[in-house]
């Protein structure tokens, strides 16, 4: 099986640790991961902001770059949601019938990380070690677009030494919503305030999720109020082991906002 990593433009630019962690987990499970350098962005930002035609070259590029692979894995429910639910729509509206077929075939082979681990590899215990109190926020597109269900929870339960606490009102949106966070920043902030309150109520030191974008928003809010809790991507928790644990808490050496330990860079 040829497996490709789709890093997503956000993780590529801002959260490379999430990509490294995804590769680590997959390689530990015996997968050979390739990184096609021609990849850029899924085009979700364009589609969701109203620029569908401008997204066409990105949709074409995605299908072309990932066509040769049997499985495409991304550490993002939202970007995979866009590939699976929006690419065909863009292709139908602006592309050729051939493109529609191509994007549908590639979408059928594209997986969010927890889906790939549980459904394709059939693994729930990835051999991780993470001795922290953690709460899990199911991001909207993982929850309602991809229906990943409790796959991430199952993976987290199997992590050694991890104390998982349930997040109240977990299915409520954190308020990120892409350009919504900018265009409707007041409403977005009001939603964020409630999400932070529920996260802090759990007493967890880490809020995790399968999307760097939502975590950037929640983590950015927690950092601003000096909340003493932070966000870490699910892939980073699954990548941490007894031999190579993830070191948290040395502020001078790591970014505070969902970026992971910079010392590793």
């Amino acid at each position, binding site marked *: 099986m040829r497996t490709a990593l789709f890093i997503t433009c956000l993780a590529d630019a801002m959260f490379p640790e999430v990509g490294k962690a995804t590769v680590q987990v997959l390689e530990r499970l015996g997968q050979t991961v390739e*990184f096609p350098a021609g990849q850029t962005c899924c085009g979700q930002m364009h589609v969701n902001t109203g620029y569908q035609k401008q997204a066409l070259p*990105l949709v074409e590029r995605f299908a072309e770059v990932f066509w040769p692979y049997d499985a495409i894995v991304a550490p993002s429910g939202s970007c995979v949601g866009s590939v699976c639910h929006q690419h065909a729509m863009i292709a139908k509206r602006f592309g050729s019938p051939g493109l529609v077929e191509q994007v549908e075939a590639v979408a059928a082979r594209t997986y969010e990380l927890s889906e790939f681990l549980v459904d394709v590899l059939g693994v729930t215990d990835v051999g991780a070690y993470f001795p922290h109190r953690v709460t899990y926020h199911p991001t909207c597109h993982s929850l309602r677009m991809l229906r990943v269900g409790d796959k991430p929870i199952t993976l987290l339960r199997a992590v050694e030494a991890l104390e998982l606490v349930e997040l109240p009102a977990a299915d409520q949106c954190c308020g990120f919503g892409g350009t919504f*966070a900018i265009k409707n920043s007041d409403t977005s902030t*009001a939603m964020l305030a409630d999400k932070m309150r529920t996260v802090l109520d759990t007493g967890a030191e880490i809020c995790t999720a399968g999307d760097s974008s939502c975590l950037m928003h929640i983590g950015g809010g927690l950092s601003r109020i000096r909340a003493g809790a932070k966000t870490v991507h699910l892939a980073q928790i699954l990548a941490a082991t007894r031999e190579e644990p993830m070191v948290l808490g040395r502020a001078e050496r790591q970014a505070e906002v969902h970026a992971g330990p910079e010392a590793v860079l």
Partner: protein
Amino acid sequence: MNAPVMLGLPTMPPPAPRGVGNLRGDEKFPAAARRALADTQLRRNLGKATTTIRGKRAQVVAELPDWEELREAGRQLKVHTMADLPDYLAQLESAVTAHGGVVHWARDANEANQIVIELIRGKGVDEVVKIKSMATQEIGLNEALEAVGITALETDLAELIVQLGDDKPSHILVPAIHRNRAEIREIFLREMADVDPALSDEPAALAGAARQHLRRKFLSAKVAISGANFGIAETGTLGVVESEGNGRMCLTLPDTLITIMGIEKLVPRWQDLEVFLQLLPRSSTGERMNPYTSMWTGVTPGDGPEEFHLILLDNGRTAVLADADGRDALNCIRCSACLNVCPVYERTGGHAYGSVYPGPIGAILSPQLTGIEDNASLPYASSLCGACYDVCPVKINIPEILVHLRAKHTETYASEHRVPSAEAAAMSTAAWVMSNPKRWTLALRSGRLGRILGRKRNVIGDVPLPLAKQWTDARDLARPPKQTFRDWWAAEHGGER
């Protein structure tokens, strides 16, 4: 003589006209929302009410093993009806007429209001009673009647609270959801002439005061005005579902009944109600069944109104029907489940939407009824979280239509302006950069310049620049890493950098 042959494209059906009705707000959503978010009493009232009703809905929906099949049946019935709407409307008209009713066709709010005014004047009265109706709110009927000296009295408790408070409804089902009982007591004491000054804010006492106030009006009114939840093409039957019984009073006591129904409220057959009467109460009030379901077919001598007028309202609906990607918004049965689960609605309330149709359904319906540019900020009033789609009893894919309308807006803007908007220019540039990996890699590396901003705390704090400010007002921004993922990969694995 043959009709002249028309060449060229058929003209688009018109949107709901400006200057009448309540489909357009005075300001854009973000500005209106900003003010609403600062109202702590509103936030508290809404949070409490929507949380309660969400819980009730979830409980009664979970009881039905065939809920998903019911939703699918509801969706298919609506899609089928919309595909054959002209035929079904003609069928409804002949059935209503055959049973002694009179059918009027109103192209828009102005025509509908004028028809109502003439009918009331024909009866020689200057006061009418009303059943809660979204269609009459949409066309601004009360305002139109007031302008010609006719008083319309709302008999639904929540609509009465809104009317007495000189306020606007903020929810499809619970128009006074933004008020708590202390506020309602205060409105009653101020506006009801003969109310007991010792009135408490107990819900039962408030309802009792409203009942006393309304009872006299029911007995004296000669004309009643209603909307309709359903119109059945096969039989010509109209239906209203309600909780309080005030509707039943209006539908049976006055001599003349005028019903205003949007043309999309049609169902083909009597039997179709078995689906909708299961879907609607569970989705709207979270009840297995609503307390009152009233049905009437034309007139029945010696029983109920002697005269029945049905006004079929377009007001932009045909324009919505013309858009294949947006028309499912017409399938809405006005249950308001999408409002109650919407995280945006829960925090901003309904007034921020500027239209009588708030929340997720309003964000896709109002801009289509008015034409996109008159409500261009509404399709963006959503984080696209998808909670609305999950609860919709007729499975309207609201997030997908929101995204469609955003595109419709940017395309309309582009066609009407020679210079692209700053956002469009930025998006085109981003697409140009991202459609080529070399350009993308260079752009990523330049992002490291952002590191300069985050030296002190290792995060980027408040940046007083446009766009950056919208983010950093409330959230820190991660400092860009020293090395992007692709540069790390190239360093580790070799290959293109």
